[in-house]
């Protein structure tokens, strides 16, 4: 889980062009949207693409998006729960 979260932080910085940040600047539980990391709706679409391409994981129900993308930890938990071996 720790390695997955570390990988996710690097991938999020790369995919979302967050060049002002380093992986250690992103907390495991830190909210990614709103007052947290300040991501927006376009970033949410990029995160969906990232999960599909890197982990073959799809978001089946769009209404689950805010819960899944709450933090790096919640994304990692979703990947673990939905990734096929």
């Amino acid at each position: 889980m720790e390695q997955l979260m570390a990988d996710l932080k690097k991938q999020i910085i790369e995919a979302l062009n967050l060049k002002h940040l380093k992986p250690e600047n992103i907390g495991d539980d830190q909210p990614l949207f709103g007052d947290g990391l300040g991501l927006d709706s376009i970033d949410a679409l990029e995160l969906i693409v990232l999960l599909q391409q890197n982990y073959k994981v799809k978001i089946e129900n769009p209404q689950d998006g805010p819960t899944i993308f709450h933090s790096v930890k919640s994304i990692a938990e979703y990947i673990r729960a939905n990734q096929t071996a």
Partner: protein
Amino acid sequence: MFISGTSKIRKQAIYHQGTLAFEDTSVSLDDFLTAAYDHLSPEYPKFYKMDRLAKLGFLATEMLLRELPIKQYAPESVSLVLSNAHASLDTDVRYHEAAKTSSSPALFVYTLPNIVSGEICIRHKIKGENTFFVSSSFDAGLHEAYVNQVMQQPSVQACIAGWIDVMDSHHDVFLYLIEKEKRGLALPHTAEELTKLYR
């Protein structure tokens, strides 16, 4: 109405009121844009997500308004009139290539030339009329006529106007601020003056 100030970006050099303010020709255009952002230190992380056209417009506007802030004007009283030759083709080509292997929503949103206008408006809280023309070269006559028409509206107090063009490593940016009140350079807004300033 008067031209209060100008900014230019050419050959990886930024000019303010005609004077060199920053230059780095030793790196790629992308690295130059990042270096210029670091030099200006505007603390606006969204810059990193912008395409080249928006980055050039953002940097030129930062330089233009650095000593000529427009905070005294109501958001609705500031207009924006921009033009270029390549529209958003620089990003269109990159998106076309990227789409062959994956989709990128963040790149797709920049496949319109007037997105740079939106980025400038968001950054500087501008809510006035904005227009984007595409022509083969900077048309001083068009700018004189159209911007003067915009400025004649009683509600408009200032206008950021000019040329923001990029295609691959080629880039050419010339922005100016025109106001009803005399400030800064206080030059007449005529095609002749614009042609001289654009050179």
